[in-house]
């Protein structure tokens, strides 16, 4: 499964260009999509799900061009978890998934089998009889993910799937996505850099409708090589001074002060050592380059 995006542009009626002439090739496995709010990630995903028609450029999925005549064929291959979705509040988890599965065209018996499997995988089995409105935000998110997986799509698009999940649940969902990605393509959009670092080897970074970077995670990390510094601040005042003068990726309280990770091409003028680059560091480096 491969998705080719060529010169894609989306301009809204108010003349705002949400996606600006982007080119991207997404192949098998999990492909990360990273970017600040308003970068154009959701717009790009809405184009890929056929909900939104682009103003210019082309998209093809396994050689099938995104066009009116091909939409139904493409839609059958897609699973989608939007950023915000309120599943049927009056239905139980089981009823809701059966309903959505059957609407997808999955035969009833097969649908029940898949629901059982994915409910177990997402630790929702014991909640299957609960009404959707009785679930916590994290549980709703997991049900949302199950509905996207039900038709076992070749191309799964997930927008912030781990929002509202506790750390354990997040790991479980990440593992589920990794298992699911075998011989399939997953486009994983998130703000949580840690989720991408744990799941994918390729990613794209978007900013203001443009692609800042696309390719291997390793290459992206190497871009920030030599630009990450672990600085130690003894006091609050010193920490604030560092934050004021440099681009900071993380700040952690440690015994006797603060350990601050600074992203800078030059060595900061404070007590510091060079640090190993994480995806978060590379992302901040790239966004402020």
């Amino acid at each position, binding site marked *: 499964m491969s998705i080719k995006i060529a010169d894609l542009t989306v301009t809204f009626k108010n003349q705002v260009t949400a996606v600006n002439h982007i080119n991207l090739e997404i192949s098998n496995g999990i492909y990360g999509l990273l970017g600040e709010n308003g970068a154009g990630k959701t717009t790009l995903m809405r184009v890929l799900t*056929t*909900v939104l028609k682009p103003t210019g450029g082309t998209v093809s999925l396994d050689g099938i061009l995104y066009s009116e005549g091909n939409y139904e064929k493409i839609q*059958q291959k897609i699973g989608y978890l939007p950023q915000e979705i*309120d599943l*049927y509040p009056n239905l139980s988890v089981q009823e809701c998934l059966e309903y959505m599965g059957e*609407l997808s065209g999955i035969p009833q018996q097969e649908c029940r089998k898949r629901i059982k499997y994915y409910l177990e995988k997402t630790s929702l089995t014991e909640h299957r009889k609960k009404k959707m409105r009785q679930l916590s935000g994290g549980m709703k998110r997991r049900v949302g993910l199950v509905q*996207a997986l039900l038709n076992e799509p070749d191309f799964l698009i997930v927008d912030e799937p781990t929002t509202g999940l506790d750390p354990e649940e997040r790991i479980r969902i990440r593992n589920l996505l990794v298992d699911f990605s075998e011989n399939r393509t997953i486009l994983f959009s998130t703000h949580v850099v840690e989720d991408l670092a744990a799941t994918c080897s390729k990613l794209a970074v978007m900013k203001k409708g443009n692609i800042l970077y696309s390719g291997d995670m390793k290459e992206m990390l190497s871009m920030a090589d030599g630009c990450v510094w672990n600085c130690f601040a003894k006091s609050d005042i010193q920490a604030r001074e560092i934050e004021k003068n440099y681009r900071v990726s993380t700040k952690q309280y440690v015994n006797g002060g603060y350990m601050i990770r600074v992203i800078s091409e030059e060595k900061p003028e404070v007590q510091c050592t060079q640090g190993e680059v994480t995806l978060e560091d590379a992302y901040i480096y790239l966004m402020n380059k």
Partner: protein
Amino acid sequence: MMKQDLKISLPVYKIGYSLAFIVILSCVHSAVYVNEIGPAIDGKMAVLALVFCADTYLIERQSRRREVFRLYPIKNQYCAVLRRITVQIGYLTGISILAYGMFYWQKPAVLDEKRSGIFLFLLYCGVVFITIFFWSVLSVTVCNLLQSVWSGMGILFLGWLFLVSKAGEKLLGVWNPFSYEFCEFSELTEWKWAAGKIITAVCAMLLLLLQKKILEKRG
């Protein structure tokens, strides 16, 4: 899937306001004779139907499920909308029959022994079913086309106001969808008024068939 569509289409708040509507109607609208009950309910059920069914499909948009719903095969989307319309029409027809019974607390008198209460009741059932059918499907159609529940309801309400007015009666005559409401008791068995209802039923069938196209274009 019918069970799920039943739960989706008939939430508690809708059942609540629709029952309140018929209770209030049976309390505030007088019916001295049995033959006045049907015309008293028929036109008002149109308003209830247009409000009740406005969000049949747009509920997917309001709940931000539309982007997922759109990925389903169009035939399945269409069937889901048809099931929801069926459930709602069935329910509204049921409560309109209940409303008919509720008018009996006013102890209406029988005007003409030849036209028995059962005949008037059966006539009313057919008429009110067509009214509900038409206004439900029209409401789903207009709201989908406008992509707005409130705009759809507003426009249809204005249309309803015109049709039930004297001007609507004069302009459309027996072709008015509410011709049954306007006809005199003595004209009831002359069936001229049925023209309006037949046209309404045909229009409703056509609109129902159009739903698939509307879903494709505006869904």
